[in-house]
């Protein structure tokens, strides 16, 4: 992340200046390579300006508050998705795990009459366990993550439906389960505890990835698993921990979702799975693993939200939002391929 201030040593043979000069021939590419969150930030700023010009209510404090509350759930799912994609994996079951988790949390509290604290804890454990199942399939049984989570997508969706007999669970009792929906007033902004939790988790995961050995190992395993093994990193353990942490993040997402709507339903957007991947990819995290930062994912999730809100405020048909997201994803991957060409 430090700018490459290259000092030329006097003793360096002239040929040595050749390759680095060629490498730096495109400083723009090198800059995007060194700072993977720059391109999503640029897209976010442009999108925000354009939609603000179309409708100046876009960034009113009221609208901004609602957008932040809406982005919390998808932002959390994308955060869990990020650490999995960093290991060159993918999680297609992310939405299903979250829904299963929230059905257990609400179901235990409503149908089983359990106090909310154990209900919340058990629901969380279910989500962590679900993540763990994905992790075990990917590490112990060598099932490619795409296939493993495609399978568990069906399993966890069915489990969530079966658990609540396909019904919406409402009303959710107790202040703890709904605590994430509590509004905090900041001047003319209304943010919720859920938003604060989301930001906190981004900071924590960002710290773990950037400043701890675990984070370096996550990048190394995603970058080159064989190299990671040879330097003595236990790849399976790192991978499994990633899927467990992702499950924990999905549990928080479930909690935030319950707080926002006050109920638990299996028919909330079925596009959650793909939306989370969209946010991660637009956020500049490479699907090939090993590169990307959570700040990029945060921008990616915000971009998705800005498009959703902006297009609905502009009074344009919803299909254009799908179109825009689709194009953005493709553009993001093309950009990633180009940036990755910095490697020699």
């Amino acid at each position, binding site marked *: 992340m430090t700018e490459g201030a290259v000092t030329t040593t006097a003793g*360096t043979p002239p040929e040595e200046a050749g390759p680095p000069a060629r490498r730096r021939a495109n400083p723009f590419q090198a800059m995007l390579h060194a700072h993977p969150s720059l391109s999503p930030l640029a897209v976010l700023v442009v999108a925000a300006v354009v939609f603000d010009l179309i409708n100046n209510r876009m960034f009113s404090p009221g609208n901004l508050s609602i957008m932040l509350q809406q982005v919390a759930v998808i932002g959390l799912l994308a955060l869990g998705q990020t650490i999995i994609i960093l290991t060159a994996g993918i999680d297609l079951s992310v939405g299903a795990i979250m829904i299963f988790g929230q059905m257990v949390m609400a179901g235990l509290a409503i149908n089983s009459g359990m106090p909310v604290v154990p209900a919340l804890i058990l629901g969380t454990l279910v989500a962590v366990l679900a993540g763990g199942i994905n992790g075990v399939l990917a590490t112990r049984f060598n099932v490619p993550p795409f296939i493993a989570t495609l399978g568990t997508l069906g399993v966890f969706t069915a489990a969530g439906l079966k658990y609540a007999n396909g019904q919406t669970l409402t009303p959710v009792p107790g202040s703890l389960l709904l605590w994430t929906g509590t509004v905090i007033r900041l001047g003319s902004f209304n943010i919720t505890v859920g938003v604060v939790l989301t930001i906190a988790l981004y900071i924590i995961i960002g710290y773990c990835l950037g400043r701890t050995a675990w984070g370096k190992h996550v990048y190394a395993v995603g970058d080159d698993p064989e190299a990671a093994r*040879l330097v*003595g990193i236990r790849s399976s353990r790192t991978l499994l921990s990633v899927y467990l942490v992702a499950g924990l993040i999905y549990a928080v997402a479930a909690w935030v979702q319950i707080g926002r709507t006050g109920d638990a339903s299996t028919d909330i957007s079925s596009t959650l799975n793909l939306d989370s991947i969209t946010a991660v990819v637009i956020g500049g995290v490479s699907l090939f693993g090993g590169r990307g930062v959570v700040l990029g994912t945060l921008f990616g999730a915000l971009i998705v939200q800005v498009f959703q809100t902006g297009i609905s405020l502009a009074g344009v048909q919803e299909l254009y939002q799908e179109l825009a997201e689709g194009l953005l994803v493709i553009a993001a991957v093309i950009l990633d391929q180009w940036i990755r060409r910095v490697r020699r």
Partner: protein
Amino acid sequence: MTAETTSPRQNAPATRPVLAATGLFKSYGRVDALRGTDFELYPGEILAVIGDNGAGKSTLIRCLSGAETPDAGTITLDGRPVHFRDVQQAKQAGIETVYQTLAVSPALDIATNFYLGREVRKKGPLGSVFRMLDTTAMRRMAREQVTKLGIETLQDITQAVETLSGGQRQAVAVARAAAFGSKLIIMDEPTAALGVRESGQVDSLIRRLKDEGIPIILISHDMPSVFALADRIHIQRLGRRAAVITPQTHTMEQAVAIMTGAATA
């Protein structure tokens, strides 16, 4: 054409080997890669290991570096028997390996690669509770090591490895091994992927390591480089040690003849 017969003992220094192996066996399914290989590495020497494809060089090295466990036979380090179950245990014992694939993470920077798998945490609660890495210290130590080895092509220690040339990447891998290999360093085909000029740089790096007194096992196909660098040459053939020669007593042609079985040692 017959090569001069030389038993391993004749060329061996009088001291105790740093690393020794006797009667190593290793099979993969029906393929016997090692069929009773012996091996000795003495203090301060560069021992080249050569052999045709399928002679068991790689398997021998994998056993010595902990990447593989032999089916039978003993390995001793400083005279004490060792049983490495993985690479990590060999590393802890002071054996570092520079792999042909280099085993570097391209997206991570030089300093991070140096300490990958043995990161240094900050002192105090920041390190013990929050597990925070001491990035400053790791960068400083990596830079010191690079400077000590005189690798002036690695200037920015925070540069991602993937932005480096092949020779520079090799230098990172070698410098890393040199920083942590307290007993010996194994180098597997260190110049195989490099151009002429970069190979020369790696060769001088190897000489500098030898000057520091650290014994080196060098696996290579590059005969001129082997004969220029090595003190002794272990020739592996058909899963066994066919001979140990020295560049002084044998020519390259004789070495190749022993390697291919055209001559016996």
